[in-house]
């Protein structure tokens, strides 16, 4: 009797030990996964924050200085990034939402399946190729770099995110609502736009915000499309414009310390814009849980 009890004890101890080892391994591995993220956040804050303090309000409204000591500002890039996000949202989101609805409503038709597959491919499409495409479609015919060309490229990039989010959000709506709506005699468009979209709006909104964050952070599609102004703020949507990611890309290639500082400050600003877009998303998701 006693013996077997001890044996049992050893076995349970072994199992407990195994569990502990497993948990610790998982903990260490997940810590390693998020480590780079924290490293990026912290180093951007540590290096960017003093620049923002030193530059003050001029950093937000000024223009690029020559190499040397001055910090100047990144005003045109900030204006450009906001304008690009806005324009690309106007161009991309309506089409994307409608494409998402189509893929949801006709999941078994040839076009519906094709739409979804193509959207998924588009999501992983190299963004630099989108930039080249926009260059030949918009920049060359217009004969100048322009904000609209950049917005066109960005719209192509954000569309699949918004469309797939829309489709998935709609699919999560319980079928009962749809059936109830039809039984009340509503037409198809009324069911979709008056009932389903309203229930699924959180999911769709999340998709839209992810798309906008994507548009704010992309560099490659802007390389051949917007030019990259550093002195001119805004002359019209058919004229060149700046953008924060592109500015960072250009500045870090130069050997000058003040350019690197400006790049860090711009990186922090970009990060703040990102958080500004992402924190609402997290709050939204929590609301759904409750």
């Amino acid at each position, binding site marked *: 009797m006693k013996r077997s009890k001890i044996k049992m004890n050893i076995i349970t101890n072994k199992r407990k030990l195994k569990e502990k080892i497993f948990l610790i391994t998982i903990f260490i591995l997940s810590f390693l996964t998020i480590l780079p993220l924290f490293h990026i956040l912290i180093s951007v804050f540590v290096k960017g924050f003093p620049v923002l303090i030193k530059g003050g309000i001029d950093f937000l409204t000024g223009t690029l200085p*020559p190499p*040397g000591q001055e910090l100047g500002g990144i005003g045109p890039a*900030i204006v450009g990034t*906001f304008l690009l996000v*806005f324009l690309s949202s106007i161009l991309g989101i309506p089409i994307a939402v409608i494409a998402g609805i189509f893929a949801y409503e006709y999941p078994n038709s040839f076009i519906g399946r094709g739409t979804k597959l193509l959207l998924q491919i588009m999501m992983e499409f190299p963004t630099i190729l989108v930039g080249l495409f926009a260059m030949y479609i918009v920049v*060359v015919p217009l004969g100048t770099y322009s904000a609209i060309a950049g917005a066109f490229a960005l719209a192509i990039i954000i569309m699949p995110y918004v469309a797939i989010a829309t489709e998935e959000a709609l699919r999560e709506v319980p079928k009962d609502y749809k059936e109830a709506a039809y039984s009340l005699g509503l037409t198809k468009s009324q069911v979709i736009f008056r009932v389903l979209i309203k229930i699924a709006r959180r999911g769709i909104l999340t998709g839209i915000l992810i798309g906008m964050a994507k548009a704010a952070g992309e560099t490659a599609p802007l390389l051949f499309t917007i030019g990259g102004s550093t*002195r001119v703020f805004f002359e019209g949507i058919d004229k060149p414009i700046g953008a924060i990611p592109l500015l960072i890309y250009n500045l870090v*290639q130069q*050997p000058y310390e003040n350019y690197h500082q400006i790049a860090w400050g711009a990186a922090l600003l970009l990060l703040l814009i990102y958080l500004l877009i992402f924190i609402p998303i997290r709050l939204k998701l929590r609301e759904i849980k409750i």
Partner: protein
Amino acid sequence: MMANKRFKLSLLLILSILILLPMCAEKEKKYITISGSGATFPQPQLEKWITEFMKEYPNVKIEYYGGGSGKGLNDFKKGLVDFALSDPPVKESLWRELEKKGQVLQFPIIVGAIAIVYNIPGVDDLKLSKDVLVDIFLGKIEYWDDKRIKELNPDKNLPHEKIIVVHRSDSSGTTEVFTTYLSLISDEWKKKVGSGKVVDWPVDKLGRGLGGRGNQGVVAILKQTPYTIGYVELAYAIKENLQIAYIENAEGNFVKPNKDTIKEAMENVAAFVPDITRGYEEKVEMFLNAKGKNSYPIVAFSHMIVWKDYPDEKAEVIKNFIRWIMTKGQEDKYIVTGYVSLPTRIAELGLKAAEIIE
């Protein structure tokens, strides 16, 4: 409905920022915008000139987008920008294509040099002769304490360590100038490797070569890895405080790149720069290994490429800008560290261009 409200609010916020920011920044100013793109090497210098020029001409805005010599010329050809900067002179085939659209003008705007930089702790002012330099990059000299390096540097304490060669991994005008120089001083290099924006580095096959992206990448590797040698634009070598080697010039003297040695080289080759309307006749090798007692052998021009004809208001601005660069812009206080101003003879070419633009 909360979400909808918040969404509308944030949209409103973005919109208002969008409309307000440009308005408070510009205040209905009337100005003319000129744009250019191209080489990144002269970009810091150009940014400096543009800033100073705009102080004197507040009704003008000049934008420079960078992106590389190739992109600049392509943009210029497509009419996306008003001027282009290019490190290598325009090739004849492209020049002919451009001429179909109108008369093209090309002239040097600034001088740069390529420094041979290395990292041997405790060994400054290393001297390298032409054949030793070539053989290091060919991989024939394997150790830093090789007999031939020792002979040139008898008083230096050279370590018995393998030489690691750092080169550019991306397509680069710097590589083109440097390999053209090596081809010029060594037939063996010319036959085995040749010159170009990208070449097959013999040291890579020996396992002693490392590639870095951009000047910045080469500098980073060089700083982290002892016993390395590489080539970068002078501005980077100075900014990053790298050890710069003395190189043997055409007359057998050992020289470091600095304002005087680069200027002397330029004085000696100024006559080779072709007329502004025949820019395609210029070749990179014309300016390498220049004669002169203290001439630094690896120097290159950055060029500006413009049209002869512009719309009225733009023509005036471009004329003024070029004239300003060639006169005031060449004064020491407007020259960024690492660059060297043009010899007067060459600055006159730019002034001539400013005269005939209309």
